[in-house]
């Protein structure tokens, strides 16, 4: 970046008191351009490979000439992300340089305008969207880079990058949209990309199915989202964020039915996108997509859109205690439920998938208990360590795949029972993933410790207002889930990287560390997973924190950064609690949250939880190492309760039985019976009846003159009778 450009943006930041975003549209537009460029390349390539397919040959990236099928997408794909990221950083710096209270809304054109309803194609830049953009473009860029290595030989390489860029475009629209409809564009757009990417290898029926499932389940959520929008519209006559959230505290009654309905429908939308109970089922299946996709979409960014949305609409949720407690309840239930399933999974990506669901549950718990910043915080750290975990697993799978491919072994490259001892072949990956594991397990001072413990803490502390009992239960459950997390993650690590290698003697010779394009992103993410949490060190432990103390710029930086977004919600909650007298006797400064349900301060519980988690991790390492594991083909089927967990509590089967199959049956019934028998039957009976009557009447036309005369006489009689009787 040239000095003059640097001067330009710094000047802007200094001279203007208000935040003036630099090329905001370009941030969003660049990935779109990348998509168009890559899409064009992809189509060209696909045309050529289609010819090959018709000739009965196999697809080959070289068919279209390596430069256009590989080199160009490799440059364009990550390139546009890097450029976007750079722009985001510039804007982030400029934003942090000023005191920004109100969001900056950039309007481009009027999108829809009916006369009573107007919505602009406008983007909103504020603290929350900035954080989200950083995550999306930053982590997104790393994953793009990783993909260059991971997808190197895939015949759909340019298409892959086209989708990925399109995804980032929609994700950016989602997080920057200045109104609910614009957000919804991104909301559905990412769903579309998720659909396309899950089914990226569409030739495989199961993968294709998984994509479809993701899309349809997401649409159930979208239904809720839309209904929420409608309710919002009739109450506010607009769907712009600024107006809605600005007027909400006055326009909507606290705890009223309207706001509760809004929040519950929004929750349905969020649950769909963020894979919460009862709509989480698509996410584990979504692992059918390429692993970097799982990292980007199904861990770091898209699935957190629900959390983002709740945080964005925090005022509304704050206005509805029922809504909030439901959000939190759904979150914690999901966290625990998914964790139980993750306990016994043997597919490395499935473990991570359920782990993701579980962590998303934590985020929901966070935003549900009113700790919106904490939720977003966990969203961010989770983006780091979960992306890392996925990418790491991707590296492992990549390696496994190569090895199995070389020896034509049909074994499953993702099954941990076929791994073991991988750290010998890929030490860097193992290290990076251990960092991430510690982070997710909540071990101090890794990123996850700060974010997750904060959520749990707030859950406990929320037990002062309405539904105090429920929140207490949540707190306990969240703690339990944290322990489970520590266990299953450690189990996964040990099964994968430790012990003896179970891949096979011949195969193990081909196991190797990933190329640099893959390891570099791992490294960066590992660093972020290490230190990412430090941006939001709680006030209570800042002094003692690593002895750094005052060296940290500030405690709870993220809280303060997001203050303009969340303060309205916080205010609403506080006022409500004050009005209810729930805070009587409480010290009232920053918040109202100072004591856990069973006493003890924040620091105490932080210590307890980290120690507990560490114990679980250590114990698990020892325990699992002692298992005598066999490759998948030789392993027995799980039994008893393990099998229930292994089969995911049979939820998919349940849904299939009570929703999918009945729906199909009803549909067939409608078609075969209502449509074809009743309605068409009626139509045909009318038609056929008319013809039958016609035929019957024509039988009187016997050809005999007597009959004809007789009918005429009857007619005369009738007429005479009528007339004579009448006259």
């Amino acid at each position: 970046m040239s000095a003059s450009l640097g001067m330009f943006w710094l000047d802007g930041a200094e001279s203007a008191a208000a935040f003036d975003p630099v090329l905001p549209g370009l941030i969003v537009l660049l990935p779109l351009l990348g998509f168009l460029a890559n899409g064009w390349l992809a189509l060209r390539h696909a045309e050529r490979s289609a010819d090959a397919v018709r000739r009965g040959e196999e697809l080959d990236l070289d068919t279209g000439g390596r430069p256009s099928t590989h080199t160009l997408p490799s440059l364009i794909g990550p390139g546009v992300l890097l450029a976007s990221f750079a722009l985001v950083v510039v804007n982030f710096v400029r934003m942090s340089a000023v005191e920004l209270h109100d969001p900056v809304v950039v309007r481009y054109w009027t999108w829809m305008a009916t006369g009573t309803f107007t919505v602009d194609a406008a983007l909103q830049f504020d603290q929350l969207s900035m954080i989200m953009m950083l995550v999306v473009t930053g982590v997104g860029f790393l994953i793009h880079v990783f993909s260059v290595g991971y997808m190197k030989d895939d015949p759909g390489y340019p298409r892959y990058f086209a989708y990925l860029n399109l995804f980032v475009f929609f994700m950016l629209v989602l997080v920057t949209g200045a109104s609910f409809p614009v957000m919804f564009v991104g909301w559905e757009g990412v769903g579309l990309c998720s659909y396309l990417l899950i089914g990226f290898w569409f030739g495989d029926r199961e993968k294709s199915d998984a994509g479809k499932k993701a899309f349809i389940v997401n649409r159930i959520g979208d239904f809720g989202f839309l209904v929420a929008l409608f309710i919002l519209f009739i109450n506010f006559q607009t769907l712009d964020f600024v107006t809605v959230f600005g007027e909400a505290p006055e326009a909507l009654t606290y705890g009223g039915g309207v706001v509760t309905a809004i929040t519950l429908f929004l929750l349905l939308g969020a649950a769909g996108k963020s894979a919460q109970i009862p709509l989480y089922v698509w996410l584990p299946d979504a692992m059918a997509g390429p692993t970097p996709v799982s990292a980007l979409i199904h861990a770091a960014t898209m699935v957190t859109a629900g959390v983002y949305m709740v945080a964005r609409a925090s005022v509304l949720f704050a206005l509805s205690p029922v809504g909030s407690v439901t959000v939190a309840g759904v979150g914690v239930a999901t966290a625990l439920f998914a964790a139980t399933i993750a306990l016994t999974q043997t597919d490395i990506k499935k473990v991570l998938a359920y782990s993701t669901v579980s962590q998303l549950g934590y985020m929901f718990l966070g935003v549900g208990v009113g700790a919106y910043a904490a939720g977003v915080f966990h969203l961010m750290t989770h983006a780091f360590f979960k992306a890392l975990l996925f990418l790491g697993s991707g590296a492992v799978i990549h390696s496994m795949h190569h090895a199995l491919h070389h020896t034509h072994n049909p074994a499953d490259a993702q099954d941990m029972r076929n791994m073991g001892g991988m750290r010998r072949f890929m030490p860097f990956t193992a290290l990076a993933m251990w960092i991430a594991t510690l982070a997710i397990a909540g071990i101090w001072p890794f990123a996850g410790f700060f974010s997750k413990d904060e959520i749990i803490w707030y859950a406990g502390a929320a037990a002062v207002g309405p539904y105090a009992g429920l929140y207490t239960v949540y707190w306990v459950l969240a703690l339990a889930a944290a322990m489970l997390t520590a266990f299953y993650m450690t189990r996964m690590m040990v099964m994968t990287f430790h012990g003896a290698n179970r891949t096979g003697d011949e195969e193990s010779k081909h196991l190797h560390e990933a190329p640099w394009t893959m390891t570099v992103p791992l490294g960066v993410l590992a660093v972020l997973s290490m230190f990412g949490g430090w941006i939001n060190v709680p006030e209570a432990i800042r002094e003692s924190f690593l002895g750094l103390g005052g060296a940290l710029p500030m405690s709870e930086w993220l809280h303060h950064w997001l203050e303009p977004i969340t303060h309205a919600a916080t205010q609403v909650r506080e006022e409500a609690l004050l009005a209810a007298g729930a805070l009587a006797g409480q010290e009232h400064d920053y918040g109202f949250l100072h004591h856990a349900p069973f006493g003890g301060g924040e620091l105490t519980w932080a210590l307890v939880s980290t120690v507990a988690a560490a114990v679980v991790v250590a114990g698990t390492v020892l325990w699992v190492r002692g298992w005598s594991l066999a490759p998948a083909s030789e392993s027995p089927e799980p039994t008893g309760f393990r099998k229930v967990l292994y089969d995911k509590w049979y939820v998919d089967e349940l849904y299939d039985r009570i929703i999918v199959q009945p729906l199909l049956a009803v549909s067939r019934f409608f078609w075969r019976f209502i449509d074809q028998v009743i309605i068409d039957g009626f139509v045909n009976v009318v038609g056929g009846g008319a013809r039958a009557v016609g035929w019957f009447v024509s039988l009187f036309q016997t050809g005999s003159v007597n009959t004809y005369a007789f009918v005429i006489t009857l007619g005369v009689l009738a007429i005479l009778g009528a007339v004579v009787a009448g006259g």
Partner: protein
Amino acid sequence: MTAFLEAIGYGSWGLHALVWLPLLGVAPVLVGPESRAKKVAFWWSAGVFVLSLGLWWSFVPGSAELQMASERPWIGAWGVHYALGVDGISLFMVLLTTFTTPVAILGAFNYIQKKERGFYALMLLLETGVVGVFLATDLFLFYVFFELTLVPMYFIVGVWGGERRVYAAVKFFLYTAFGSLLMLVAILYLHARAGALSGDPSFLIADLMRVPLSLQEQLWLFGAFALAFSIKVPLFPLHTWLPDAHVEAPTPGSVVLAAVLLKMGTYGFLRFLLPLFPAASAHPAVVSTMMILGVVGIIYAAWVAAVQPDAKKLVAYTSVAHMGFVVIGVFALTVNGLQGGLVVMISHGISTGALFLLLGMLYERRHTRLIAEFGGLARVAPMLATAFVITALASIGLPGTSGFVGEFLALLGAFEARPLLAILATTGVIFAGYYMLPMVQKVFFNALDRDENRQVADLSPREIAILAPLVVLMVGIGVNPAPIMERMEPSVRAVIERVEGVEVDLGLAELGVRADIDDPDEPESPEVAQ
């Protein structure tokens, strides 16, 4: 552009040319050699389309008035006028028609193999009929055009259709004729009332709107009109002709059927039903009934579509669902709903038309429409697959495509009127995925496991030329529908004001006084205000 149009006097002859030029085109098509018929027809209709584009510029946005209106007596004794005019509602319907026709004709090039002259002549005849329907401002003239569209379509389906073409054609014909003939009686009733009122019979809509009708009368007439239009739409449970007609119709026939013929029904709602019978239209029971039928149509058709083995039939059922959105939008009687309905009409015309074209292309390649026969086509026909997926997504209303704008607004408007029904209708969003995605998957994704499918060719340049403008429009309208909406808004508002102002009208009519609806200074009685 506007100046140029003024210079050539477009305003005075444009509409007439749009109606009659296609008919004139029948002659060169029929006279020329068989092999040239399609080209003549295509270029002719393309010319008509270019001509119709002039409407966009010569139309003055922001006015609810009929523009470029002209009328002259046709059958003086009955007060039948040859009266044409365009407003924000019909403008887009006309453009949709003139746009769809050349596209459909272009899509017919390979599909139609026999009696080409006749086919293309009928297509042009059909265009005349449909444009006439949308431009007529005289009820009689409208009816003539409305019925006139049946005949070409009957032959298009019946002669160039599939195996059960005759059944489908006759069903189509009788179903629709049944409704429209009852409407004819209602029209005559209205006319008789108007004649009795003023002593000067007239079929002009503007004159008929002045007839004070009791609620009872309005409900009866509404029923007759609504039946005709609902069959055309088609509204559940009057929809069963549609799947048959679509499945059997040749591709261009399906395209025109879906893109414009169905719109004649909903257009009729907007142009005639609501303004002529405002009290009946605003009657709560009527609104509920129509909206319930719309909602049932949305859900029911989506479900039924989902289990169709025949892709074309599937798309046909989706038409029912889409038109359900239009119906709930229209009968919401809100600005949002009506405009949403209109946008759905446009969007459905484009996206469903495109879907039928695409299915036609598939059919030309594989001579089957059974979903199970396909699989993995994306590998051999990536362009086709891309176009199909985009179209399918537009069809199920993905934001950023035209489908979303329309459905969103229609649902929004419906929610303002009947929240519960709107919520039910919104489930259509889910079921849209439920019917469309499995079809897309089974046709284009999954394994390429059949040798026949392996040889499927990708899009030809001609086919790209057909689809490209459609795709551009789907996305274009989805991203920036405002220019369309600003043109339709005043007209929509006028309709709503008409419906809302009705009770004033009725109250005074019983006293023998007629309220002038357009006069904003008219004092409203308090009980009317709510």
